[in-house]
């Protein structure tokens, strides 16, 4: 159980500016022994963040530590042997070689390569590794690359949109394999995804990322039980004043004859409502994408207010 407690990845003050994109400054600590999901819209900087962690790109500023080793200070071969990485897009440059040749290459570089496990993965995923990588269907290529990322029993798995191209059966197999991977308790997964079901099934922590910035990191179960929405019959004007001080209020809108109030602290909100004898007509927990949307909205507001403040 020694995995619980430390951090597998630490980023502090990491920023990178390109002609059309500003990443960071990022502060992020990924706990060892858990699955952390990075959730956010496309082009929010998730893939760039993975590349920075693997020293495939250099940040303008800030420091990155992976499995206790500082990135960017000389060769990282020993470190990379302990990492499994599934990039968002397969590498095109090895399209002409067969799967088994690529596997031989991995066998050479990764001392932890487990040929039996590799074969089991191919069997579970129904992948024929005698096919040239460029000839594989999108789904098969994904499954093959996933098998490669897992077969050396890495301590840290970096998965960038792993399920893109997978059919539902392969998807289930992947979830099952990742659960098994985590079973020993001292391994870590960082997974970028926008599939809500994937986050629900896998994640322990959720990091919301939008426009190159981390909006926040949350414990999944706390987040999902914390965010609720309530419906109140009547006009928005009537409720606006009444609910202004409701704990965690994160949204109040007219939803066609009823008023919808969103809170990020359901327990406190419910106690607060009960104390005022305000009974909502309906209540619902919220899905991750709704929560993300609410957080993005809140962030926009905050930024607007920040700009106003700067002007004054």
């Amino acid at each position, binding site marked *: 159980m020694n995995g619980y407690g430390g951090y597998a990845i630490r980023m502090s003050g990491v920023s990178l500016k390109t002609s059309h994109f500003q990443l960071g400054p990022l502060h992020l600590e990924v706990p060892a*022994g858990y699955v952390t999901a990075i959730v956010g819209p496309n082009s929010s900087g998730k893939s760039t963040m993975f590349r920075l962690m693997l020293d495939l790109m250099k940040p303008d500023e800030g420091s990155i530590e992976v499995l206790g080793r500082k990135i960017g200070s000389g060769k990282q071969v020993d470190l990379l042997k302990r990492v499994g990485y599934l990039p968002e897009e397969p590498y095109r440059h090895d399209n002409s070689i067969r799967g088994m040749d690529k596997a031989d290459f991995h066998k050479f570089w990764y001392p932890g390569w487990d040929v039996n496990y590799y074969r089991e993965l191919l069997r579970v995923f129904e992948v024929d590794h005698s096919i040239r990588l460029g000839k594989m269907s999108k789904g098969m290529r994904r499954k093959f690359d996933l098998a490669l990322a897992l077969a050396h029993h890495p301590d840290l798995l970096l998965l960038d949109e792993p399920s893109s191209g997978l059919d539902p059966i392969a998807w289930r197999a992947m979830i099952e394999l990742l659960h098994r991977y*985590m079973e020993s308790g001292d391994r870590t997964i960082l997974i970028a995804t926008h599939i809500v079901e994937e986050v629900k099934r896998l994640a322990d922590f959720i990091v919301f990322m939008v426009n190159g910035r981390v909006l926040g990191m949350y414990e*999944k*179960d706390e987040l*999902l039980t914390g965010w609720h929405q309530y419906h109140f019959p009547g006009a928005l004007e009537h409720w606006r004043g009444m609910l202004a001080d409701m704990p965690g209020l994160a949204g109040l809108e007219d939803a066609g004859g009823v008023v919808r109030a969103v809170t990020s602290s359901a327990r406190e909100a419910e106690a607060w409502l009960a104390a005022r004898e305000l*009974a909502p007509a309906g209540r619902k927990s919220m899905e991750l994408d709704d929560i993300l949307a609410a957080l993005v909205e809140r962030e926009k507001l905050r930024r607007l207010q920040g700009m106003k403040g700067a002007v004054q």
Partner: protein
Amino acid sequence: MWMSIQLNEYSAEPLYHQIEVQLRALIVSGQLGEGAMLPSIREMAQHLKCSAITIRRVYQDLEAEGLIVTRQGTGTFVAKVDPEERSRHRLEAVISAMREAVAAGMRVQCSDEEMRELFETVLREAKENRSPPAQTGSADNGKEDEG
């Protein structure tokens, strides 16, 4: 047996608390007997579709209460529960479930009288429908299998 744990997604009650109450009930009622092995943290998390953090918290709490023990490298097991402890814990899950029911009633503005009536009706129905023989001390196994 731990498979009978059911979560209410719509409750604002934290998941770890929901799980803890039910697992404790299974142990103190003797449905999970001394020495019974519990699944690993990951396995339980996967089954309940919640996070390993939540299950870890549950195991830690129950371990602190002396209801379970974790042996390094082998797993987590139900400890010996003394009878006094058992009787103290026995009603906790029931009280918590009643609170939930009362809260649900208050949300739709039931009167006290209506609630009492409902309680009597539900109790009567449960007794009529119960398939013999009655299980002892099972406060919360409304549905047996399913997941």
